[in-house]
């Protein structure tokens, strides 16, 4: 009785869900990429993270901030895992404003691993003004902040096209088939060979888009590898404990003539 009713519920619910809304027709579903960090035991591709950081640093960072990351994060386990020297060198390549000193003056100094990523603009208003009225969003948690996550970010990066006939675009507005409304104020910044990868990988648009998306996915979820690893252990532990408790329960309830 109850079982057949539950089936009925599940069925009618599936039926309901299949009545998907006719969402804004011009928006295309993002491309599905087989990311290495997907799934229960997914991990980041270390080399891809390092290349992705390079793309971020040489291309994205001129407009997008990543204010919640510190340079030290680049050397931490589960991330790009640059060596200590590399992290220090990366940090030192940025001039960071510090202070006030004992004279009350602000000063600049080379960055340290403990510093946060340097932002390209002093504040949101400056960033907005410099980019034609569209604020380039902070990229620290961007992958978590967009429906579709990494697939969506990757799709937008490779989704630039000439507008279809009849679509008129204002100056500084570009056509992107994966963007909501298909209009984006970020120009297509990726061109084949734009970045000279330190590891010699060929820097196609697709490669750079994948690498930088991987980097952003890590930036949004730096705990992902540890989370997956701990999760597997926790589930195994819980399953074993559940079996033991189940057997104990059967034994205890066998003392009386009742079903558990």
């Amino acid at each position, binding site marked *: 009785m109850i079982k057949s009713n539950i089936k009925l519920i599940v069925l009618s619910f599936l039926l309901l869900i299949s009545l998907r809304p006719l969402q804004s027709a011009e928006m295309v579903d993002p491309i599905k990429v087989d990311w290495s960090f997907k799934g229960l035991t997914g991990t980041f591709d270390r080399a891809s993270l390092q290349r992705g950081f390079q793309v971020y640093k040489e291309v994205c960072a001129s407009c997008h901030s990543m204010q919640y990351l510190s340079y030290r994060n680049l050397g931490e386990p589960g991330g790009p895992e640059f060596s200590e020297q590399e992290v220090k060198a990366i940090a030192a390549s940025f001039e960071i404003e510090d202070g006030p000193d004992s004279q009350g003056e602000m000063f600049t100094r080379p960055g340290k691993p403990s510093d946060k990523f340097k932002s390209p603009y002093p504040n949101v208003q400056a960033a907005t003004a410099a980019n034609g009225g569209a604020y380039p969003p902070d990229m620290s948690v961007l992958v978590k902040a967009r429906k579709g996550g990494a697939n969506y970010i990757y799709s937008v990066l490779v989704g630039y096209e000439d507008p279809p006939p009849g679509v008129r675009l204002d100056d500084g507005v570009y056509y992107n088939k994966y963007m909501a409304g298909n209009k984006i104020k970020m120009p297509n910044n990726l061109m084949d060979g734009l970045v000279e990868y330190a590891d010699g990988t060929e820097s196609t648009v697709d490669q750079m888009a994948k690498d930088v998306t991987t980097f952003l996915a890590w930036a949004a979820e730096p705990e992902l590898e540890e989370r997956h690893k701990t999760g597997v252990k926790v589930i195994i532990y819980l399953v074993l404990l559940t079996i033991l*408790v189940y057997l104990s329960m059967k034994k205890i309830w066998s003392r009386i003539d009742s079903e558990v």
Partner: protein
Amino acid sequence: MSEHEYVPKSKAAKWFNDRLPLLTLGAHLTDYPTPKNLNYWWTFGGILTFCLITQIVTGIVLAMHYVAHADLAFASVEHIMRDVNYGWLIRYIHSNGASMFFLAVYIHIFRSLFYGSYKSPREVIWIIGLMIYLLMMAAAFMGYVLPWGQMSFWGATVITNLFSAIPLVGDSITTWLWGAYSVDNPTLNRFFSLHYLIPFLILGLVVLHIWALHVPGNNNPVGIDIKKPSKDTVPFHPYITIKDAFALLVFMIIFAGFVFFTPNVLGHSDNYIPANPLVTPAHIVPEWYLLPFYAILRSVPDKLGGVILMFSAIFILFVLPWLDTSKVRSAVFRPIYRQFFWILVIDVLMLGYVGAMPAEGIYLVLARVGTIYYFLHFIVVMPVVGYLEKTDPIPMSISEPVLTGGAEPSLARKVNDKV
């Protein structure tokens, strides 16, 4: 009952127990005679207690690192996620814990509806339970505001604006709630304060809920009164404790699955965008567990009407024990009511689904049909079916289902199958 005979073994324990009978209470809780036929739907009380404790413990730790300020809240959450040792784990347990809490409470409530646990003599348990549920919704709503993302801000704006529908004083009340002329830093501050307070109010009500339960004792799947203690009962420990522990562990496996492998699937991606009063999200949706009420709210074209209907949807449950006219508790013996029960379940699921969709076209129609049916179920179906329904024969006891309508030994098995 055995607690009357309870005498502590050591002299010191007796001395203490004569002054504060905590040991007597412990003995009562251990020996508490519980129907032996409780099924797994009855394990959610223990699971809910676990959920509450988990939320309180993780919440206290989060509060040590969180900053309740409009300019710093979002950054402090990221600080917890990135820099606090296992901060990501604590926060994901807390945020997913809220969802698991509601999942468990909905099962618990529908269990009560199916087996008639709200009926005499358990009305007070039911009403205290509903008060807990109301406080849970308040706590969850305020908790969702704290990360100060886009959904936090706009969710808070939508819900607090509901009070502006009150005639004459609505706007003043809303301003008073905000502590400002819009949702702003003072709002965030007081929400944090209340979010910290409410779980302890819930804890107090949980004590009353269990106290009230221990007066008549548990209902059971057969829904009949039983002698306590008797062949029909088992001591709470170890029989019920081990069964609750087993069910809790299964629940924890699902919980852990969410926390470790899809920690953000139940949330909204917009809440990782910092709150911006100048940009309204395309669709403002509450967390999933509030969606049925959101659907009811939006199904009425008039704002005040929607608010009244939404609150009525909850408050009608308070008079449920008096709307239900059936003398039989368990739906196992109520062939007609049982069908309506499942229609109600589908109705609420449907309302939840359309609550997540834009309020237009077919969704608005479904929301209206669902809302009307929801109220019909309680106002018309429950009283009428209770009068007209011919219920199945009810066993005299759990162990010996002697029947009221002559001997029919096969029914005993039938009852067990259904249960």
